[in-house]
């Protein structure tokens, strides 16, 4: 982790002096799917994180017996985020890594607050783990695109097969993405933005 987590805190990178809009986009998905990698690839500042505390209201939704956490009433969850300035649009995008499990629902209230859309990362070896996060996003009425993060050992399905396996709405963009590659991850963000424009058009017509 080259974020604030490693001993020495990074020097603050202040916001541009010029007027700009700030927009929040969620990068969501199950553990280890590459959320932080994607954020680090796009972010112009070293990835930051805040530790958020979740109280017992959440614990009941999760089976904690397996990992010996029974009786634990608070959980600290680190939320990674980064920043991407789009100078041409005078916009600063904030990308928030958002854990995909339902047990993090209380955190979603804050993290998803004000988000304009979400990029859901999926892995073909465990597509089912992305269902939960897609449900959470749909429940909040957020528009999203799905980016299949390509790992070397992932089965190579066609996008049509993946779309049917994920049971995606035909309008929801589905792209492949290498979270380590800037252009590839930008393309996923571009697909999401194009989708948000299409949705904005539908709503105003």
């Amino acid at each position, binding site marked *: 982790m080259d974020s*604030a987590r490693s*001993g*020495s*805190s*990074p*020097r*603050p990178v*202040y*916001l541009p*002096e010029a*007027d700009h*809009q*700030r*927009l*929040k986009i969620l990068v969501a998905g199950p553990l280890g799917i590459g959320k932080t990698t994607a954020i680090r690839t796009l972010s112009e500042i070293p990835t*930051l*994180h*805040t*530790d*958020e*505390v979740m109280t017992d209201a959440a614990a009941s939704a999760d089976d904690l017996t397996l990992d010996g956490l029974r009786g634990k009433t608070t959980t600290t969850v680190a939320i990674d*985020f980064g*920043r*991407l300035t*789009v*100078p*041409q*649009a*005078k*916009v600063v*995008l*904030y990308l928030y890594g958002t854990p995909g499990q339902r047990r993090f629902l209380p955190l979603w209230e*804050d993290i998803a*607050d*004000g*988000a*304009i859309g979400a990029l859901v990362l999926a892995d073909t070896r465990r597509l089912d783990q992305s269902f939960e996060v897609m449900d959470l996003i749909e429940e909040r009425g957020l528009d999203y695109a799905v980016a299949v993060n390509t790992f070397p050992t992932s089965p190579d399905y066609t996008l049509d097969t993946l779309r049917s396996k994920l049971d995606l709405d035909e309008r929801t963009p589905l792209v492949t993405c290498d979270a380590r590659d*800037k*252009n590839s991850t*930008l*393309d996923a*963000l*571009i697909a999401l*933005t*194009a989708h*948000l*424009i299409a949705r*904005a*058009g539908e709503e*105003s017509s």
Partner: protein
Amino acid sequence: MSRSPQGRRMIPSYLATRGIGTPTRNTLHSLMAVVATGLPPAPHHTPVHQRIVSLLTGGALTISETAAYLRLQTSVCKVLVSQLLDGGHLQVRVPAPVGLLPDAGADRPSKELLEEVLSGLRALRQ
């Protein structure tokens, strides 16, 4: 950053806010940008208040970033920032983030702004 402590905070979060658990205003969002006004911290301010003012003397940051640099929970940071806004030590940088505007109709960014973002993102490809 030299003013940030290495390792664990020495006091619990609830003491950093002087025991106050809720922000004095309910309009603070994590992407609100704040900056110091130049008014020096007052004697009743905790060391954490002082660190926030000192961090934000160099420029504007969102509440999320302020919390991350100072290793505070976002909710605690909101309480502290709202106290410092009340005292005139911090001010909000305008404009407020799109999507966080009080008007419910302004819940989403305009299609025009999104189109500019799309074109701007394409321009960032190498």
